[in-house]
């Protein structure tokens, strides 16, 4: 990190030119916007009538308004299913793909496809698949003699939409884990094989501890994604009047700001989201120092 070319004379100007856009983005786009959101969160404003100070009322509403509370609980519930789901499934897939068998590249392509395509387009087909009376999923369930399920009804929508979100995230997770698995020195496996260890002993004794950096990274990424999940929820759980059966915080922010013109309340929710993510990241980095094994 200490290495570096020293800019000479007029090159300092070049340095300014090259860093300029990023500096502007950082100061105004990121830090300035965060500050502005913070200020807005202490106001009432619909962008039409004059802005009025609101004190802490928007923050009080976060914990007293049933709609805000429901959004917060939904976000936690969503994340609690989504994050472990993505981490475990993509690790499992990566371990399968790491075995030295032929045709892996075809499987890799197929598993990655949902991560490439837009959630909007694939949500449309998932809506068909999940259809109550016409969907292919219920058709197979009933032809196998099971009860059909109303997948996108309010009581099941959360689980159904989490499944689709996991489906869409396996591709990227799998690549992160494959990179981690390839980095494990083969001597460990050879030694285990000589000692006659079975598949499970190898996985829990060697693979799992040595892949903890990937688990850490993927958990981090998945958590950030979980707190911002929007596309599938918007596409699959909207009901009449533009509400959702699984309104998470991001959905609620959009609705508050752009349907109800409550920019102050939406700003407070955005701050709430950021604080939660930062706290969770801090917790993860604390866990990392205790449990993650770097070679």
């Amino acid at each position, binding site marked *: 990190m200490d290495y570096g070319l020293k800019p000479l004379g007029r090159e300092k100007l070049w340095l300014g030119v090259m860093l300029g856009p990023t500096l502007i983005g950082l100061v105004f786009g990121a830090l300035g916007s965060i500050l502005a959101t913070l200020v807005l969160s202490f106001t009432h404003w619909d962008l039409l009538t004059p802005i009025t100070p609101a004190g802490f009322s928007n923050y009080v509403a976060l914990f007293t308004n049933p709609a805000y509370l429901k959004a917060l609980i939904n976000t936690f519930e969503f994340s609690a299913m989504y994050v472990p789901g993505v981490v475990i499934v993509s690790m499992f897939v990566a371990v399968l793909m790491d075995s030295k068998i032929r045709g892996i590249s075809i499987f890799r392509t197929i598993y990655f496809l949902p991560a*490439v395509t837009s959630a909007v387009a694939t949500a449309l087909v998932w809506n068909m698949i999940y259809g109550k009376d016409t969907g292919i999923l219920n058709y197979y369930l009933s032809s196998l003699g099971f009860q059909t399920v109303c997948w996108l009804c309010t009581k099941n929508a959360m689980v159904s939409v989490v499944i689709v979100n996991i489906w869409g995230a*396996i591709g990227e997770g799998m690549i992160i884990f494959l990179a981690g698995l390839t980095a494990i020195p083969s001597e460990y496996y050879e030694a285990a094989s000589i000692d006659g260890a079975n598949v499970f002993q190898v996985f829990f004794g060697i693979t799992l501890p040595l892949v903890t950096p990937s688990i850490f990274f993927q958990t981090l990424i998945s958590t950030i994604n979980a707190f911002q999940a929007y596309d599938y929820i918007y596409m699959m759980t909207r009901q009449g009047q533009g509400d959702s059966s699984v309104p998470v915080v991001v959905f609620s922010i959009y609705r508050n700001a752009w349907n109800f013109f409550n920019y102050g309340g939406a700003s407070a929710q955005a701050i709430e989201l950021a604080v939660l993510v930062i706290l969770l990241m801090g917790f993860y980095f604390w866990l990392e120092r205790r449990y993650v094994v770097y070679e």
Partner: protein
Amino acid sequence: MNRTKQKNLLDLVTYLLLIAGGVLMLGPFLWMVATSFKLPADQFTHTLIPNPATLENFRNLFSFDLNFPKLFLNSTIISLLTVIGQMLTCAMAAFCFAVVKFRGRGLLFTLLLVTLMIPEQVTLIPNFIIFKWLHLVGTSVPLWLPAFWGGAFGTFLLRQYFLTIPRELVDAARVDGASLWQIFWRIYLPLGKPALAALAIFTFQGAWNDLLHPLVYMPTVPNTTLTVGLAFFQTQLTLGGRFTVLMAGALLSILPLVVVFFFAQKQFIEGIALSGLKR
């Protein structure tokens, strides 16, 4: 002998699991393709092979007055401008962070990484207010202009790659009297091609698939992107019960990225692995 037998059995189980998973991963796409070639009357049939197969849905997509070509064009322009903005500004910043020594480099880079973790929704509301003041809401400007302010993810990705380029090259060029800009333009850009390609693909994908920002800035059809258009068609076409047309639209909307993915799979996958590298 026993060991090879065990290995074969293990391989068989691996294949079976991968195939079962593959059906789940690919299934929805097969269903999308199948439905898009079915007659509207057959939209809820349970067969994967359309019988009879028809191109009617694709014809209807363009004749139903859905403005599909306009949406496609909007998405293309916005995505390409976003790619240009990000490539330019992220590459320049990444070069500075990776190669040039200047005061506050460490602090600036850390700040940039911190913004990676801040949910975008936090910046959305003030940005919207500013673009509204500028009377740019309803145009595509708010969707691509911010790409020209740099980006934390792209800068990080490119810097990681730039750090792997041997420093001897820079020192040799410096001895020959090359300027900073020449070192950037003649050494780092050409050698950084794999990472630049990965960033271009990710950026294009992000812009093409984005739903939230177009919903905020260009919420009404036809002056919007494919994603908002498809979301709108869903409510419109489903009312008319035309899933076949909807699937044709969904299929065409994912086609560009699927094609790019098949040709540039390596960049996709290496780019993701690169972003996961430890510091």
